[in-house]
């Protein structure tokens, strides 16, 4: 559904993305990983038209993004960023209703159908009970749910998430990804999420893309991408990749804290890694 080919992006003289390819099919959750500064956020911004690219093609269902107006794009792509700024004084419902903007004409106000769509979105994201609360009174997790429901209210086909859970506690992290997974399955939504937590990403994504230094280092199923030597090469840190006892999905843990202990472990447990 989403297809990125040969994307090159530079900030002035400094190249950030050097020929990136990415695919995401309908109903898929694709996790984009990589160390800080490797260009993950830039990739998402290029898709929404927030940053210009010097070469490459980005297409949604075959239609090139370059030619699309911001309004047309907004009807198909919704973005969830981390720590979104929510203006004071507005209620959660009013903020979520802003998600209907791409579907409203200039003089048009939100109508009953818009309210129904937003209500459904907020109920799905479990924040409908917060609808009359002012956003500045909400906790981080609650705000994130409001932002997600705003994105859902756009009725998008593609959902882009930029580290949506980095600032949330474990429960909310898991809840958010679970919600994402369910939405993609039940609504045939496509999600491309930039994630830091490798294990969490592995748990919920269908495919992964590992970005390093502006290039794709590896793509494929989590088990294929998350290999110890790949991670070590890209992140510069020694890890062990284990298998989740129930799902079999990769679980990434850093090697022991000190070098000496690490040595000892390696000598003792040689061959035990998957």
């Amino acid at each position, binding site marked *: 559904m989403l297809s990125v080919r040969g994307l090159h992006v530079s900030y002035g003289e400094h190249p950030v993305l050097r020929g990136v390819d990415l695919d995401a099919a309908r109903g898929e959750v694709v996790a984009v990983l990589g160390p800080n500064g490797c260009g993950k956020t830039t990739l998402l911004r290029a898709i929404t038209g927030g940053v210009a690219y010097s070469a490459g093609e980005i297409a949604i269902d075959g239609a090139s993004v370059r030619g699309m107006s911001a*309004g047309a794009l907004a009807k198909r792509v919704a*973005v969830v960023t981390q720590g*979104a*700024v929510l*203006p004071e*004084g507005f209620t959660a419902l009013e903020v979520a209703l802003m998600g209907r*903007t791409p579907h409203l004409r200039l*003089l048009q106000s939100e*109508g009953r159908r818009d309210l129904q769509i937003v209500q459904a979105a907020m109920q799905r994201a479990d924040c*409908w009970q917060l609808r009359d609360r002012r956003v500045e009174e909400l906790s981080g997790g609650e705000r994130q749910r409001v932002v997600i429901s705003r994105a859902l209210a756009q009725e998008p086909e593609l959902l882009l998430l930029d580290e949506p859970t980095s600032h949330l506690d474990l429960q909310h992290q898991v809840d958010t990804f679970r919600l994402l997974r369910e939405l993609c399955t039940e609504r045939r939504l496509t999600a491309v999420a930039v994630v830091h937590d490798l294990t969490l990403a592995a748990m919920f994504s269908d495919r992964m893309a590992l970005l390093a230094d502006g290039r794709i280092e590896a793509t494929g199923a989590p088990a294929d991408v998350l290999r110890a030597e790949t991670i070590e090469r890209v992140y510069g840190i020694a890890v062990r990749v284990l298998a989740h006892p129930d799902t079999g999905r990769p679980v990434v843990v850093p090697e022991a804290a000190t070098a000496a202990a690490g040595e000892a472990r390696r000598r003792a447990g040689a061959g035990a890694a998957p």
Partner: protein
Amino acid sequence: MQLARPRAAPARAPARPPALLTWRALAPSYALALAATLAVAVFAVSWGTVHIAPLTTLSILIGHLPFVSTGEHSATTDAIIWQVRAPRVLLAGLVGATLAYSGAAYQGVFRNPLAEPYLIGVASGAAVGATLIIISPLFVAAWFISPLPPAAFAGALIAVALAYGLARTAGRVGTASLILSGVAVSSMCTSLVTYLMLTYNTRTLAILTWLLGGFNTASWQKVAISAPYMIAAGVLILPFARLLNVMQLDEDEARQLGVNVERIKLGVLGLASLATAAAVSVSGLIGFVGLIVPHAVRMIWGPDYRRLLPLSACFGASFLILADVVARSIDPGYEVPIGVVTALIGAPFFLYLLRRQNRAAEGRA
């Protein structure tokens, strides 16, 4: 929140659905606000140093409508009501409304609570235009239409265009750059005015009087030349209200919701600046209104621009009309500078609202 799938909304009796801010839902509030402003205006026209009974006032006002006649009144009373007070009140109302809704618009575009309509050069540009006329031989000739308002108007627009052009890079105008270039242009204009004021010191009082602002010289002619801009801009800005709400999110997020941020900035700032230029050209530089009134309205009625814009207009109109009543009546026969009045009335009121909001916040915390 459990880890399981969230349960469906509990089956209760359907609660009252949340109210949506449609134009139809807002219409009663608009009508009420307009009616209140009109009442203030009529009160203001019947109030003054010279005591004229309210019924007489109404009778004279209605008598000036076409095809209506309400009998004879003394020429002096008629002149006072129709030629002095009525245009004065009307101009004060229009200027107050304009400064207030422009202030709200500026605060919305810049997402900055300290923004106000003079931010990017309207006031100082108008001052340059007016000063150039006052010191020139043009001021000496008696014209049918005074060249002062058009010159001030032109000066204001040139200054804003300059500030906008300087801030524009690669088709985008960052709000921070715009503020900086606006401050730069304003400073240049102000220095020029100061220099001219001191060099042509026989005209200093005339320049200062113009800068200080006021409605003592209000006339139907001034209303006629400025009202079209102030009213048209106000009407044309209102449709942008919902998008101004969305722009409070953050420019990137607004863009991702499909909002053409640059076009909205240009449109809203352009309209607000045009209206403010017209207001300033006929009433001088009256401060405080554009900054404070939107905040007061926001504190009472919330931040939604579909309420904020029209209610600021009505509130600003009433406020400035009442301030003008004070300016011309507090020291009977003599004129008090209206800037002093707006500060003296507005500041305590604003402090009261601020304290009320802080107490509410404490209660919540």
